[in-house]
Structures are given as C-alpha cells and as structure tokens.
C-alpha cells in the first residue's frame, strides 16, 4: 500500500497520532471529544462496509443492520431484563454475528449489483422488524434509558472522557484486528478471491467459506460500533438500521475512499462534520448530501483518500522525472 514511502514516516506519524488521541480530552473541548466519539462508532460502521468493499469488492447495504442489532440487544437486555454489564454488549455482538451467519448464507452467493440489491432487502427486513415488532423494540419511538457501564471504578455514563478512553481502546483493538486480518494469509486469500475467483477455486481454496467468513468479520466490526452507539446516545430507534443509515455509511466510505481503513475514518469524520455544519445552515441537508454523493460517485469514485493518493503518485512521478531529466516532459 505504501511501499514507496520512506520507512520512518509511518512510525513517526503513528506516535504523533497516538499522543494526540491520548491527550485529546485535555487539548480540546468536551464538544470535540463528543464529536470524536461519534466519528469513532460511526467509523466502525463505515469500516465494516469498507472492509467488504475493499477486500471482496462487494458493496453491502445492510451493515447498519448489524450495527443496529447489537445496539438493540444491548438496549433490550439492559432495560427490559436488567442484565448486568458484560452480558448485554457481549450478547449483542454475539447475536449480530449469528445474524450475519444466517444472512451471510444467502448473501454471499450473490455478486456485484445482486449483492447490493440482496443486502438492501435483508437490511430493510431488519428495519421492518425494528419498526413493527413494537412489543419488543417499542416501534418507531425506540428504546431509551440505556446507561453506559461502570468499568474499573470509572463511570462511562458520567464522564465523556472515560467513555472516550474505553471507546478509543475498543476502536484501536478493532482497527488492529482488521489491519492484522488484511495482512494475514486469510486476507491474501480474500484478495485472491476478489481479483480472480475462478482461479482461487481452481487452486483449491474454499472460496465460498472465505467470503462467508469475511462477511461475518465485517458484521462483527459493525456490531462493536453499534454497542458504543447505544451506550453513548442512550437510545436506539429504527433510524439506526434504516436505509438512510446504510446510505450514510456508504457515502462516508465513498467520501474517504473505499479501499482503506484510514479512508473509512476520514470519510466518517468529513460526513459527520458536514452533518453538523450543514444542519446549522440548511434544512435541506439530505438534498445537499444526495447531490454531493452523486458528484463524488461520478467524478471521484475512489474517494478523497484515493484521489489524494492518485494526485500524490502523479505528482511524485512528475517530480522524479523532473529531477532526473531536468525538463518538463510530463503532461499537465
């Protein structure tokens, strides 16, 4: 991915980022910390989508369903059955993964546009369940009063800073997990499947199983985001599993660039910032977003991170040729 970068840049950037993230609550205001928390949990949702898109070449419109299933289970188990702390989030993530196991059986058979269409339908069915099964999910008004737990004597409900650090820990864990997964033999096999499925099948790799596992891993990432979403906002309603939520995740991943984890977080950050800025200026937030989405798909389908890299590569090539030859042969 970044083989041509000088070796030092990466660790230096990583340490600067780590220090920044760790000192964020003392460097900035509460509002900024809250924004960062939101970007992190929605970022997990976007990452889940980007993982499937990047590693398998499949665009899913149901990742928010797993996000929401986990959130709903946290809400229901905590408010309705009053189960103690580690159970609701663990069960929520577990059920979301089980749901992915079930839906995955159907979805992985489809490819390309068929996959998109199928996941749209499956996601809408989860939305229908959230909206219509009112005796369990409280219908369209949703479930309120979800309290974040107390961990090691620190209450994540009372202090945003504590919440921030718990989430940062989980978030970094997931990012590390996904990055490791991408580099693992499993990740390489997946990329093989993406690039030439028949060849991988001929070589004896279990193509379907690989796709199925990737689908489940992606759901797991979204589910972790959903748990933090439910705890942070204290409420969950059908909007979080709606098509709009899925489209927002898709928009964020296309904004940032669908192939990288960094792009996923960047895209979410941009989208959520725009969300705040635009809703202050205009009521036609959705319209502006739709137009923006259209423009990005048509003119920069690789996203901002992708386009930036493209420009960087082009610029670098020009620089090298300029230095080497001492003349301007590169086209504008």
């Amino acid at each position, binding site marked *: 991915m970044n083989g041509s970068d000088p070796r030092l840049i990466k660790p230096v950037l990583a340490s600067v980022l780590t220090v920044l993230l760790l000192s964020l609550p003392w460097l900035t205001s509460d509002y900024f910390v809250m924004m960062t928390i939101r970007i992190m949990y929605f970022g997990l949702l976007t990452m889940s989508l980007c993982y499937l898109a990047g590693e398998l070449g499949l665009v899913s419109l149901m990742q928010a369903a797993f996000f929401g299933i986990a959130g709903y289970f946290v809400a229901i188990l905590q408010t309705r059955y009053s189960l103690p702390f580690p159970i609701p989030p663990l069960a929520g993530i577990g059920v979301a993964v089980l749901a992915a196991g079930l839906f995955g059986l*159907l979805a992985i*058979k*489809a490819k390309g*546009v068929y996959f998109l269409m199928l996941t*749209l339908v499956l996601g*809408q069915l989860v939305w229908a369940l959230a909206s*219509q099964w009112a005796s369990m999910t409280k219908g369209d008004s949703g479930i309120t009063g979800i309290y974040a737990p107390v961990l090691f004597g620190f209450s994540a409900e009372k202090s945003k800073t504590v919440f921030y650090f718990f989430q940062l820990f989980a978030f970094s864990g997931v990012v590390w997990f996904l990055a490791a997964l991408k580099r693992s033999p499993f990740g390489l096999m997946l990329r093989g499947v993406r690039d030439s499925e028949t060849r991988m099948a001929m070589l004896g790799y279990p193509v379907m199983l690989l796709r199925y596992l990737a689908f489940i891993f992606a759901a797991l990432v979204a589910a972790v985001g959903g748990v933090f979403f439910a705890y942070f906002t204290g409420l969950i309603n059908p909007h979080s599993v709606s098509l709009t939520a899925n489209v927002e995740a898709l928009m964020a991943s296309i904004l940032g660039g669908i192939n990288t984890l960094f792009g996923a977080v960047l895209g979410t950050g941009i989208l959520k910032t725009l969300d705040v800025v635009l809703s202050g200026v205009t009521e036609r937030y959705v319209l502006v977003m739709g137009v923006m989405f259209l423009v990005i*798909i048509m003119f920069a389908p690789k996203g901002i991170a992708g386009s930036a890299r493209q420009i960087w590569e082009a610029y670098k090539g020009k620089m090298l040729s300029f230095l080497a030859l001492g003349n301007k042969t590169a086209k504008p």
Partner: protein
Amino acid sequence: MFLVKMCILNGFTLAALLFIVASGLTLSFSLMRVVNLSHGAFYLAGGFVGLSVLNASGSWLLAIGVAGIAIAVLALVEERFFLRWARGNDLIETLVSLSIAIIIGDLVLVIWGGYPKTIKIPEMLSGAVEIPILVVYYPVYRLFMLAMALVLGGGLWLFLKKTNLGITIRAGVDNFNMVAALGFNVKRIFTMVFALSGFLAGAAGVVGGTLMMLVVGEDWRILTLTLIVIIIGGLGSLIGTAVGALITGLAYSFATAYIPEFSLFILFLPVAVILSIRPQGLFGKEAA
C-alpha cells in the same frame, strides 16, 4: 373464512400493484443491467404529481397520464445525463440511481410536504360489488387494479414478443454488440425503455396512491417490496415478476392480517427459501 377470503383478495390486488411497479424495474433491468434504485422514488414522485393534477383538473385518468409522462421525462433525464455517463460499470450506475433516489425523495418532501396524503378514488370506481363465487363484497377499485395489471402484463408480453421493437429489445439483451452492428441505435432504445420504465413507475404511483398513503418513506418501502418481487421471480423475466408479485402480495397480506408485528419481516421467508434453492430466482436466467 371471511378473513381468509379477504386475505386472498387483498393479496391478489397488492400483487397487482407490485406487478405494475416491478414490471417497469424488470424492464429496465433486463436491457440495461441497472438495478435502478430510484424506482421507488419514481413511484412516490409520480403519485404526488398525479395528486396535484387531480386536484387541478379533477380527472383521475389525466392524473395517471400526466404522472406517467412526467416521470418518464425524469427517467429520460436520469438515463441520458447520468446513467449513460457511467455506462459499463453496473455498480457505479446503481449508486448513481441511489443518489438520484435520495435527491428525488427530498425534493418531494420540499414540494409536497411530509404529511401522508391519499388520492381520492374516482367516482366511477368507488363503492363495492359482490363477488359471485366467494360471496363477499369487495371494493371496485381493487378489482379494477387487478384488471389493470392483467391488461398491462398481457400488453407488455405482446409488446416484447410480437412487435419489432420488442424483438429488438430482447435481441439487445442477448447480444448487445450484434444488434448494434445490425444498425439499430441500441443506446436510443435503452433510453426509450428506461423512460417506459419510468412511465410505469409514475403511473403506478397514482394507482398505488389511490389505494394506500403517499408519504415520504413509502418510496423505500415500495422499492423493497419491488426488489423482493424481482429477487423471487428472477431478474429480467416478466412471468417471473408476475409470480413473484403474487407470492409477495399473498404473503404480505396474510402476514398483515395474522401477525402484523412481523408482516414485512415474514417476506424474508420466501426470499430465503427461493434463494437457497434457485439463487437466480424462479424464472431468472443464470447470471452471465
């Protein structure tokens, strides 16, 4: 027994509406391989255009016509200026249609507001009649919808099988390059079929808006139901769409009557069963 009869009748009439909407989508898909996600938005916009025309003129038939033509123009613009631009990459095309759906949805909200509205059933089609064999009274309008779907289905079938244009379209599905090489302007035919698909969606909006509510959000519900119909029936097959619409309509109607909390979710069952037996849908061709 009465409930069962009503469920069956309601199932058939819902299937009729779904068929009218889905036939447009399957038509555009079979030729262009675009899963046009703005089809639900076309339906909703068509319904609201029809409502305004009806309020202005008082004629329900005129409302259908104007709504159909308005949405056909909209579809034409979408195809000509956006989809054609992205031709060849079906994923990009689908995402373009998705963003256009979002834009149309919000414009509808701006123009007609967020409150649910219904179109008044025309004088001639209001009231109920007794159905001889089943011995139940049933709204005339719903029976009319059923007849309309049958006529439309028959008409489309004849159009695709018997007319020169229909034959060209089907030939274009099988071998785009050959048909283009024979001197047909396949691009123009694409645009025309897409406009026809828009016409069907817009007209269906008026027909459906007379039966159910027109409200923002309905676009996605109709799109979901339509996609379910098409997943069950198989993409690009008119008969498949009819069968898919029947299965979906009946399942939804029975579920609404007996287990309302799961009425939409229950549609998951036929989708799951059919996908695990025949991933390409009941009448779909093997994916190329």
